[in-house]
């Protein structure tokens, strides 16, 4: 078995203290290997988004530890954390994903340029990433010249540009109609099949069903999980 690309070990996140103490996550463990997509489902306030923020180092746990590509986030200083986030982790949100003043290619190249990669090289990487999500032809368009589904594909390209192999997605299909939403999920699935590790937060079972494993969160705890699904071949045999 390969190592986890994203791992939460017995993670707890408590906000406030004493009387006003609220436990957003209470002892959650999740691991995502390269090539895997794990979906987290749960009602509002179940701790889904907190979990994703912790996985991306945007928030720190009050207990337990978070590891990204073998690095413990809690042991990093501020600069180290920022570098790790930029180098390893890509995000896709429901909206507000792209910078309106930049073209698709510029949006995708931006994190690489921030990482010190030369402009020409960053653009090449951006074009590769755009091609991988099937929107190479949109490279020079601005976000407002694209449909919602196209923008989300560009956001996925940006999340996985260059060496980044960890994709964190928070309701990435939220504002899209069901057909377009499904196309976005297919792209995420395909990128994971190509080796990325994906952690997807969604309240839609239909979208979670693209994942290898589905975890149900309620009141900050895992109440249920499907386990890792068997390989597609064995399913097809069962269905024929």
């Amino acid at each position, binding site marked *: 078995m390969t190592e986890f690309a994203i791992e939460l070990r017995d993670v707890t996140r408590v906000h406030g203290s004493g009387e006003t103490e609220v436990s957003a996550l209470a002892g959650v463990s999740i691991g995502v290997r390269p090539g895997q997509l794990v979906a987290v489902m749960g009602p509002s306030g179940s701790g889904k988004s907190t979990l994703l923020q912790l996985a991306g180092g945007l928030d720190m746990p009050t207990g337990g530890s978070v590891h990204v590509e073998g690095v413990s986030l809690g042991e990093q200083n501020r600069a180290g954390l920022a570098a790790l986030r930029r180098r390893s982790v890509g995000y896709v949100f429901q909206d507000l994903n792209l910078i309106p003043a930049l073209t698709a290619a510029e949006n995708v190249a931006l994190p690489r340029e921030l990482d010190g990669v030369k402009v020409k090289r960053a653009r090449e990487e951006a074009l590769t990433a755009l091609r991988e999500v099937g929107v190479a032809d949109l490279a020079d368009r601005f976000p407002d010249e694209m449909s919602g589904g196209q923008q989300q594909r560009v956001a996925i390209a940006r999340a996985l540009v260059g060496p980044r192999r960890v994709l964190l997605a928070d309701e990435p299909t939220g504002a899209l109609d069901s057909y377009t939403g499904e196309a976005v999920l297919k792209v995420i699935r395909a990128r994971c099949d190509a080796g990325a590790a994906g952690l997807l937060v969604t309240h839609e*079972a*239909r979208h979670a069903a693209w*994942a290898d494993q589905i975890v149900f969160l309620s009141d900050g705890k895992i109440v249920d999980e499907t386990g890792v*699904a068997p390989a597609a071949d064995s399913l097809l045999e069962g*269905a*024929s």
Partner: protein
Amino acid sequence: MSIKYGLLALLEREPMYGYQLRSEFERSTGATWPLNIGQVYTTLSRLHRDGLVEETGESDEQGKVVYRLTDPGRTDLARWFTTPVTQDDRPRDELAIKVALAVTTPGVDARAVVQAQRTATVRHLQELTRLKAGAAEEDIAWLLVLDSMIFRAESEVRWLDHSETRLARMPRPPVRPAAAAAETTTQEVPR
């Protein structure tokens, strides 16, 4: 599922014999509803009796009888396509009844029933999604059938999510003394 209209619809394409009808039916619906050849011939003879299909008079090299649609058959089929399916001839929903009874039966943890069902339904949803991921884009009939099953499973999950929240907000139901010691998931469901 009405085999009758399935066969009429296939015969609207072209005249066919029994085995051909069975394989075409399964191909069109992605083998979701396997038919046995006995069902096909029983239905064909009833359709023939009612004047909705007729024998073409030809037979293939093995001597199998070829059927075609009659005008009354065509009218009947057109009516079927334009009439919405009604809810009342679907079977009773065992799951809704089970959950409703779980709430009112002493010693049963309704939330555990809901969660166990949700895990099972989501797993089914994953299987359907994998079939869909593996299906060819041009196989539209099969994709439509899969989508239908996916949306139905999803709607069940949504209802279960909703029920879980409703149950979480409900005051704890009276627990039978014998079962009171057992914690949620380890409780046995009485038969």
